C-alpha cells in the first residue's frame, strides 16, 4: 500500500515552497534557522 507520505516530515500543506528549508533526504524535519548558512552583513561576523 505504499507509505503515508504525510509522515515523511514535509509540511505538504505549507503555502510557501518547501525546498528552501529541505534539510536532507533522510531527515524527518525541516531545517531550523540555525542550520541555514546565510550571507549576513560582514560586520555581523564578530567571531
Amino acid at each position, binding site marked *: 500500500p505504499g507509505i503515508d507520505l504525510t509522515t515523511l516530515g514535509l509540511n505538504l500543506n505549507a503555502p510557501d515552497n518547501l525546498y528552501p528549508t529541505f534539510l*536532507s533526504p533522510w531527515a524527518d524535519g525541516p531545517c531550523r534557522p540555525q542550520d541555514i548558512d546565510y550571507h549576513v552583513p560582514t560586520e555581523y561576523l564578530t567571531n
Partner: protein
Amino acid sequence: PLGPQPLNEEHKREIRMQESAFNHVPQPSDSERLRLYMPRNPYQTAQHFPQVPPPHSDTVEFFQRLSTETLFYIFYYMEGTKAQYMAAKALKKQSWRFHTKYMMWFQRHEEPKTITDEYEQGTYIFFDYEKWGQRKKEGFTFEYRYLE
C-alpha cells in the same frame, strides 16, 4: 503478472557497495560550513522532548517574542546563519541598533545626550571578548553597561 526480475552481477555489486555506504550516510551538517563555536552535534534526546522546532519558528514574529538575552545569544553564537539574521531583525524591531565599529548593540534612550562623536547616551551591550574566550569555564553572561 510480472515475475520477479533476477538481479544480475552488476546489480549485486551495486547493492553490496550501497550496503557498505549505508553505514556512513551523510549527516545534514556535513553540508554546512564549520561552526567552531557551535558545532552541530546531532544528539538523540528523550522522545518526550520536542523533536521538531515549533511551527513558524523561522519567522521574525517568532524571534520578536524571544527575550533580548536570547536574541543576543543567537546573534553571537549562531554567526553566519539565518538565525543570526532573524535575531538581528528582531533586535532592531525592539529598537536596538548595531554599532558597526564596535560591533555592539545599543539602545538609544528617549532623549539621547551626545557623549562623544562616536557614543551617545544609551544602553550598550558590552561584549566581553576576554570572557568570550573563557566562556566554557565561567558562566558566560552578556553584560549591559550603561555608559555615561
